[in-house]
């Protein structure tokens, strides 16, 4: 099964793509089949979220609705320090295991 992750940032161009690429790379190493998409945070809506298992915005996000999927703040991935990114990956892996998404 493919785990689908939605990354979001301001323009859907820079930070969210860095998050997407980093998550896909890390979870390939960890042996998971993960596919992430990067979008503009203003385009995220409830319908879009139904297509994903986990939401990884760049920081705390006020969407105007309560997400029904787990939300993990992925900002630390952008610090470019592996030790700071690891807790984010671990949290994502925790959700994958808890929700039995693998």
């Amino acid at each position, binding site marked *: 099964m493919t785990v689908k992750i939605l990354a*979001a*940032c*301001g*323009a*859907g*161009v*820079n*930070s*969210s*793509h*860095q998050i997407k*690429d980093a998550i896909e790379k890390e979870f390939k190493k960890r042996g998971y089949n993960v596919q992430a998409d*990067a979008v*503009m*945070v*203003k*385009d995220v*809506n409830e319908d879009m979220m139904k297509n994903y298992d986990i939401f990884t*915005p*760049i*920081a*705390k*996000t*006020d*969407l*105007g*609705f309560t997400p029904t999927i787990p939300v993990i703040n992925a*900002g630390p991935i*952008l*610090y*470019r*320090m592996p030790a700071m990114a690891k807790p984010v990956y671990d949290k994502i892996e925790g959700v994958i295991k808890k929700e039995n998404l693998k």
Partner: protein
Amino acid sequence: MQTIIDLANTIFKPIIDLGAAPIMLIVLTLIAWAVGVNFFHALEGGIKLAIAITAIGSVIGLLTTTYQPALNAFVKSTGINLSITDLGWAPLATITWGSPYTLFFLAILVIVNLILLFLNRTNTLDVDIFDIWHLSFTGLLAIYFGANLFVATVLVIFIGILKIINSDLMKPTFNDLLDDWENPMTTTHLNYMMNPVIMIFDKLFDKLFPWLDKYDFDAAKLNEKIGFWGSRFAIGIYLGIFIGLISHQSVKSIATLAFMAATCLELFSIIGSWFIAAVEPLSQGVSDFANKRLGGRMLNIGLDWPFLAGRAEIWAAANVLAPIMLLEALVLPGNGILPLGGIIAMGVTPALLVVTRGKIIRMIVIGAIELPLFLWAGTLSAPFITHTARALHAPGIPSTGLFSASTKEGPIEQFIAVLVGKASKGEMMMVLYAALALVAYTALFFWYRHEMMKRNQKYSDDGKEVADDVKFVPTHGAASSAE
């Protein structure tokens, strides 16, 4: 310095003649390799950059070729001369990264950042390598208008230092807006250099219209209601229909304009993301290089601005400002841009959020007041942007017409770059104007710094953790007078 560049140009002329894509493939690969990136990863980045430069040229060509006849007809039918095609920020980033000078400015700014860190003049390590293009754009603009490389470099360093100081000053406000006082994120993004100007209007608001704040509305609810109608492609379609109708095009042409605008705005973003992937190995290499030399010191991390994108006010203000900008563009004397690619004012609203701390009515009113600066700066920069884009020799870029961006970050810095460039030619009046502009810019920044330190002191007095060098009374050590 210019001699070295000239000599290098002569030696490497056969490669230079190949155009920007092959040059940047070679240059980016070698530089990433030089900072310690694995050669094949460096090469991968270089190839992606060449592809992105080629692609962006083709999409610019697609948009301008489709829109130029309609814009000319628009001018004819309305008498309003808005014939500059608004590409938005992504193509400008691509065009700027297509210049080898951008890597030169990158190296200079990394060194400046490290020096400031070693001298304890900042706590920010800027890892947002991609956004170096904003300052490179400013330097290249100064060169286009007559500055030599030395003057342009001094200007870039000067603004670069102010940006880093600003990133420290804003840090407590970011913590407040994110409601996270453990947050290490800050940003040196150029859009926040509008803060001093916005703060003048914010202070006026405090004095004259504080009662307007009670009409602030729920920004997240507004965004939710607008939904996809405020998305990039939807706005492209509205503008295509608008331009088509005003310029008396046929129904078929209007449909073409609408869907072409939507297509190109989506493609610009997709190709923009290729750029991020292209410079990623270099970004990681530079960050590793800097981190190694800082010996594990705990620092603020300078990122791109969108860690604030979760604040709904940014998008609510951008949605409301889009039609306001269109109306302003139609009547603003001296403006030549019809907003298209830049109409979602992402380069405008984050600074409004930081200064007003989310007071949405203020954000909209001050945004509407400052938008003309962006339109004028975009108009002023259009010949430079067009010239630089054509110099890429990427296939598809048309040989006629002008293009620019309506909400390119750093409009004040663009005016200063033009003045500094013109002053470099030695004309006395221009030297005087440039000197006055630089003095006013610096004085305004230091007044803003004082105001931000007052704000930060209040955060500290409320028990929040604030670094000593961005407030008046140090938490540790002898207290100095606050006010």
